[in-house]
């Protein structure tokens, strides 16, 4: 392909693809519009309910579509006392450190698995795959974490879940699909394995790294169960675990004669908690989105 031929038809193409017909564009837009409405409506209700006054929520007997007036008392209740703010920090640290560490370890392993020179390649692959289907169970996991001396430390929230076999397998598939000629060229130039990974494979796999990084980050962000089991010091509790304590409602304990303070309606609290817990991680997405842009590879391969 020469530059001149490329330019000739560019106007009719999107990233090289033929422009879709107007009819199919309209159909697609319609489908997307419906799909988005189906998603947006419940989310609007979640946000509206979190901001609605308790009286309105009680009268509606559940969620509302529009708050009569803005009432942020649920958010005040959650954010007062500094507990949630600190937990946000803990979750942030775990998520960032965890995702970086996971991504590093996983890409190293995934890359090694694409190379035929790796001894025991098949055995390691099988180990990975089998681990997807056998769950050690919570007690053996706890005992292992205890034996490695990780209890009551942030490491307990990162290290045991650091490697996700599914993510490694997917990453390996991405790496394996890179054009062979680029790697072979580098090999002939005398590049070592580490150089090839750092200089060629990773830069060419930004989309894959963004996706797997997101998978890991979301996993760390949402995890609360390892904290529940491994962390006794509430100062190290991540957000999801702290928020969980706001929605437990047990009659048997009965709060009438205890000074727990008066919280807004249960549903309102629940929805506010939902908003607080998903907004930060949702904000990450747009930053990753640009890595999904098409044609990331084109220049590198041909250029």
């Amino acid at each position, binding site marked *: 392909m020469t530059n001149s031929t490329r330019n000739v038809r560019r106007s009719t193409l999107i990233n090289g693809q033929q422009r879709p017909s107007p009819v199919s564009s309209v159909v697609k837009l319609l489908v997307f519009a419906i799909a988005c409405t189906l998603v947006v409506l419940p989310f609007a209700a979640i946000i509206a309910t979190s901001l609605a006054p308790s009286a309105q929520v*009680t009268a*509606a007997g559940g969620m509302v579509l529009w708050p009569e007036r803005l009432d942020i008392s649920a958010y005040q209740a959650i954010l007062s006392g500094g507990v949630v703010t600190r937990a946000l920090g803990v979750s942030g640290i775990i998520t960032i450190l965890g995702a970086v560490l996971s991504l590093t370890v996983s890409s190293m392993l995934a890359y090694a698995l694409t190379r035929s020179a790796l001894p025991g390649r098949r055995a390691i692959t099988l180990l990975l795959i089998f681990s997807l289907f056998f*769950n050690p169970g919570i*007690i053996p996991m706890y005992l292992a974490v205890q034996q490695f001396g990780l209890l009551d430390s942030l490491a307990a929230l990162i290290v045991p879940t650091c490697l996700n076999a599914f993510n490694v397998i997917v990453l390996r598939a991405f790496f394996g699909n890179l054009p062979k000629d680029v790697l072979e060229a580098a090999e002939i130039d005398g590049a070592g394995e580490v150089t090839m990974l750092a200089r060629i494979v990773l830069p060419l796999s930004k989309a894959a790294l963004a996706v797997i990084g997101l998978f890991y980050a979301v996993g760390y962000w949402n995890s609360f169960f390892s904290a*529940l089991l491994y962390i006794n010091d*509430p100062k190290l*509790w991540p957000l999801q675990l702290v928020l969980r304590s706001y929605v437990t409602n047990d009659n048997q304990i009965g709060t*009438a004669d*205890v000074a727990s303070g008066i919280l807004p309606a249960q549903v309102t609290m629940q929805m506010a908690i939902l908003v607080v817990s998903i907004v930060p991680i949702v904000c990450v997405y747009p930053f990753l989105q640009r890595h999904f842009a098409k044609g990331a590879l084109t220049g590198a391969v041909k250029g």
Partner: protein
Amino acid sequence: MSAHPRHPSRRAVLTTGLGIAALAGISACSSDSDGDSSTSQGGSGGGSAAALPAYIPYEGVEADLPVQDGRTSSGFFAYPAGPATISTGTPGDGEPITAMGPTSFALPPAMDQNAFWQEMNERLGSELHITLTPGGEYDAKFATTVAGRALPDFFHVGSTQSLPQFMASEAADLTDFLSGDAIADYPGLANIPTASWQDCIFDGRIRAIPIQRGLVNLPTLFARQDLLEAAGITATPQNFEELSDISKELTGGNTWAWGSLPLAYARATVDVPSYWMIVDGTFTSTLGDERHEQALEAVRALQDAGVVNPDAASAPTSTRKDWFGAGRSIFHEDSFIAWFSLYVQHGSVPGLNIQALPVIGFDGGTGTQFVPNPNYGITAISAGSADRAETLLRVADYLAAPFGTEEYLFCKFGIDGVNFELEGSDPVPTDAASEVNIGSLYIADAARVIYAPNREAVVQAAWDQQNRVTEKSFQDPTLGLYSETASRKLASLEGALGDAELDIMLGRRPVSDWSAAVEEFNAGGGADILAEYQAAYDELQG
């Protein structure tokens, strides 16, 4: 599951969003077919059986409405003015004290930012380190901590199989400190009625202290009296048919008389409020009794008549409370104690008037109220901390200070001027009230009373309700008894029976299927459980 730690139904656990993760880690299952392990373990004496702790009620305050053993809790219209301090010195030994328990409150501020917590440490003379776990997940936390041999000084006893062996191996023997009149040294613990201590005896030894609830645990049917009156219904229904007629009157548009399928209430109206009963010293199952079918039939008829909310079967309790508050349901089944929290939760509803219905007889007269286990759960002192048992019991005693004392006010409401402010003699929580939720009340708690500030009428009505329904009532016969098969199978057996009940009430299966479900229950372990309870009961009597 034994009569021990109270567990909400499996779906109640799930629908509050809890418990799931515990399972995710397991991914599957259980049952024990050959019944090897079916010998009764409860109260098998051998040695000298401990005398239950004496009940020495606190006499420093006079209740507005008196406590009557087995009939009523005491009732207070206001917190006693100028509450007395009953403790002397500090109970602690200067060393930190560790504890773990479930909680259903939002996490409190950390110790260094929590004035209440610091004051508590000061008063106890020991630093209190409590590990809290959201209630629904406590069993997972408990099991892993046990497996890791990491139990703290105090622990709330979570769900476990073979409870007597567990307690014998992991819990300190408290008999010498608490048995009989020895408990007089601990006035807070002595204020807990004797019945609650039956749960704490294992192999004849006292190995735990109860978190007492007493009669505020009663299953109760609430009604929106304001809405009944608005609909012109002033007379209390006299039998189930009248209740059903009223229900039809109250249903219309997007309102249904019932937010749940009232099987528990229906069973109380036909006098079989429990699966087990003791008749003339014999442990019997009521499941074969045709009155169960009558109750199922009655609820099924309500469902057929369209007076039950169409989402009743799957709605979580919090949603049902919302329906009740919004007037979308008129009748609401809940625990007695919810009376007050419902008022608090729905404070914005104008003219809100919640009353409890008496337990009516199906064909008139009076039905039978079920009186459940009087405890929320039990707390043990770790066997490894047995040498500190006396100190730890003094701390527990402090935390269990009776209603009407200065210590109670502190333990439940915090520091005057910080966590609460006095309005008259009643504490009113401030914004810093959440500091109090450090979980100390899951280590030890005072005997419960009926008290709600500024709600004299409700306190009176609540006390009257207890007095009325306990006249013809029926105590959970498994209290203080242990069956190993129950601990290993009862939850799944009851689950299967519950599924059958639901299918029948919703019209998915005929009422005649009930007897087959009962047979399955008995064959699957129900019969063994009955025999084990009988043996345990005989042992306790003999």
